[in-house]
């Protein structure tokens, strides 16, 4: 039998088996176990209807319990045992060992960096693209092109960006896109404009924006009114924004003082710390399309009257955008933001395919893969999986609450 035919037969058996189970178990319940006839017809119908949901959901519950529920607890259990001691219970020793590893803290730091940069940048670019493409004729073409990376796998995107960051020894023609552009800079006026003035401006705008957000967050604390929890949350997030703004300001000084190695091809992925951002660019490239389509739908849903009223009142385009449109689509922005945050916390493929965590680009998911399948240490590997789980759970709980609210 040819493989194709064999495959077809397997599929028919698999799918037919599923359907057959549902059909015949239902038939069995109605005709044999509790027939809807004879002296007990009424009682039988009631009983059959009580059992039926479990009959239908039974296989799913079993499969989910076996492959989703049990593994979570098993991972928790494994994280408390040790492989070298034949699976003996060792309490929190794996966690202690993990917390003592610099590689783990490097992964933590990088994950936090990803967490700050990627959702923010994807949402911002997505919002920008949604707003701009709505106003031009060929906007829908631009939109479908920006969304295209969503169809390419993370691995495919990583391969593309490997070409972007590719470097060949000095003296050869550069094939990597970034190096081909980089070699154009020679320290003249153009370089000054693009590498000093432009980054400084971007950083300054970014710092101002973040500082402004921090100020908005901190201001209501003094005036009072909120309860203590909201105040604490405001204080923390406000101080974090101010800190980020300060870091950005410090980076401005760095950029001004930096001596760029003009004419030297750079192997971008091996520059510690900054290579993290080169990896983030890949995920931003992919996720912007997602943010854009969701936000674009939200922007279209804004009542026309609110915008018209603002125009009549003499608002400029920026005011209309930031003070009329953005507040109205804030719930959607939050959803997009949290969704991308979930993706970021679990980012694995990109790091695995591009650097494999070398040159200080490790992230938690790849750290876990290293421990589980390269070092064969399931104790520490499971412990890091639990850490990922803990990081995700606030959003998880928020999502569950949100979905249950929607259901009612």
């Amino acid at each position, binding site marked *: 039998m040819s493989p194709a035919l064999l495959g077809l037969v*397997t599929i028919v058996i698999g*799918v037919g088996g*599923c359907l057959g189970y549902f059909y015949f178990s*239902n038939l069995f319940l109605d005709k044999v176990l509790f027939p809807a006839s004879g002296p007990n017809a009424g009682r039988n119908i009631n009983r059959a209807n*009580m059992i*039926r*949901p479990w009959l239908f*959901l039974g296989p799913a519950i079993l*499969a989910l319990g*076996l*492959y*989703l*529920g*049990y*593994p*979570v607890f*098993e*991972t928790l259990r494994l994280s408390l045992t040790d492989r070298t001691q034949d699976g003996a219970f060792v309490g929190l020793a794996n966690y202690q060992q993990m917390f003592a590893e610099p590689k783990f803290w490097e992964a933590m730091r990088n994950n936090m960096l990803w967490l700050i940069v990627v959702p923010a940048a994807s949402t911002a*670019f997505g919002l920008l693209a949604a707003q*701009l*493409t709505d106003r031009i004729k060929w906007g829908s073409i631009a939109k479908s*092109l*920006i969304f*295209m*990376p969503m*169809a*390419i*796998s*993370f*691995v*495919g995107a*990583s*391969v*593309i960006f*490997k070409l972007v960051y*590719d470097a060949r020894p000095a003296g*050869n*023609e550069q*094939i990597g*896109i970034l190096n*081909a552009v980089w070699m154009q800079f020679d320290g003249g006026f153009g370089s000054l404009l693009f590498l000093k003035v432009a980054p400084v401006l971007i950083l300054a705008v970014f710092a101002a924006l973040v500082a402004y957000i921090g100020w908005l967050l901190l201001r209501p604390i003094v005036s009072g009114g909120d309860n203590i929890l909201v105040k604490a949350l405001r204080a923390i997030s406000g101080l974090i924004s101010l800190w980020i703004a300060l870091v950005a300001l410090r980076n401005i000084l760095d950029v001004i003082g930096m001596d760029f190695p003009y004419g030297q091809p750079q192997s971008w992925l091996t520059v510690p710390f900054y290579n993290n951002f080169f990896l983030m660019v890949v995920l931003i490239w992919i996720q*912007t399309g*997602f943010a854009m*389509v969701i936000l674009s739908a939200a922007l279209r849903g804004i009542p026309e009257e609110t915008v018209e009223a603002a125009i009549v009142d003499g608002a400029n*385009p920026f005011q209309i955008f930031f003070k009329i449109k953005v507040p109205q689509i804030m719930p959607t922005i939050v959803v997009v933001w949290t969704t991308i945050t979930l993706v970021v916390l*679990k980012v*694995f493929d990109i790091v695995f395919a591009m650097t494999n965590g070398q040159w200080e680009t490790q992230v938690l*998911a790849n750290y*876990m893969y290293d421990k589980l399948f390269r070092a064969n240490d*399931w104790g520490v590997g*499971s412990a890091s*999986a639990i850490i*990922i789980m803990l990081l*995700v759970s606030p*959003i*998880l709980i928020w999502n*569950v609450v949100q*979905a*249950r609210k929607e*259901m009612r």
Partner: protein
Amino acid sequence: MADITTNTTQGPRGPKPKKTFSRANIFLYGTLIVVSMYYLLPLYVMIVTSLKGMPEIRMGNVFGPPMEVTFEPWVKAWAEACTGINCDGLSRGFGNSVRILVPSVLMSIVIASINGYALSNWKFKGSETFFTILIIGAFIPYQTMLYPIVIMLREIGLMGSIGGLVLVHTVFGMPILTLLFRNYFASVPEELFKAARVDGAGFWQIYFQIMIPMALPIFVVAIILQVTGIWNDFLFGVIYTKPATYPMTVQLNNIVNSVQGVKEYNVNMAATLLTGLVPLVIYFASGKLFVRGIAAGAVKG
């Protein structure tokens, strides 16, 4: 002075001046050009590079179109590129991906649609809890389940086989798909069921003759979600398969990252395009529904 007054009384004449280079427009187009550079340049360079020969690539000129269009890299990526000791390119990975994709998509959709229908149809004790479990199952990171599933697959003898991966994809696709179907079926007016039931239709008749025809778009969304998700999956592929059963994404990664010999940029790019071909074709064929499918699947672990 007199001229001006006559002009104003007669009103402005001639065509309205076009403000093509108003400040807003310069800002708009400037931003768009920068943004499109970031999003389109990589895609453009990928396509162009995949059509160039290696000597031409070595000459640099990254952004130029190919002087001589060649499909050799595509052939090589498909049939000859080496990963370790095997030199049969992506074709093997493609076959595996198809064999993984078709059964897992069909099974997960059949089970999920019936479950979603059952869940929206019957309010029973514990349905709330089941619903919550489904949501958690949809959002929970896969990392927490990877290793115990390795043990389980090893014990039932499916570790490294296509069947094992099909099983994993079917189960992990179920929570999000069931939610998708449940939410859709729940939005169908209840009178429809009641009318059908009064007319004497049973569970299956209602399902096949009323629900499925009505729910066709949601079936398409579910298929798109599963096909792109499973086709682009890397994590499960790299963990639960062995070289003979690697899906296409893993094969692509191995071709690109195999260290032997010179880097063949054109073959790598052709391989990327070939791997992305299935989702891309679906994307261009299905348009808006694709966006819905991706948006529905964006949250899953």
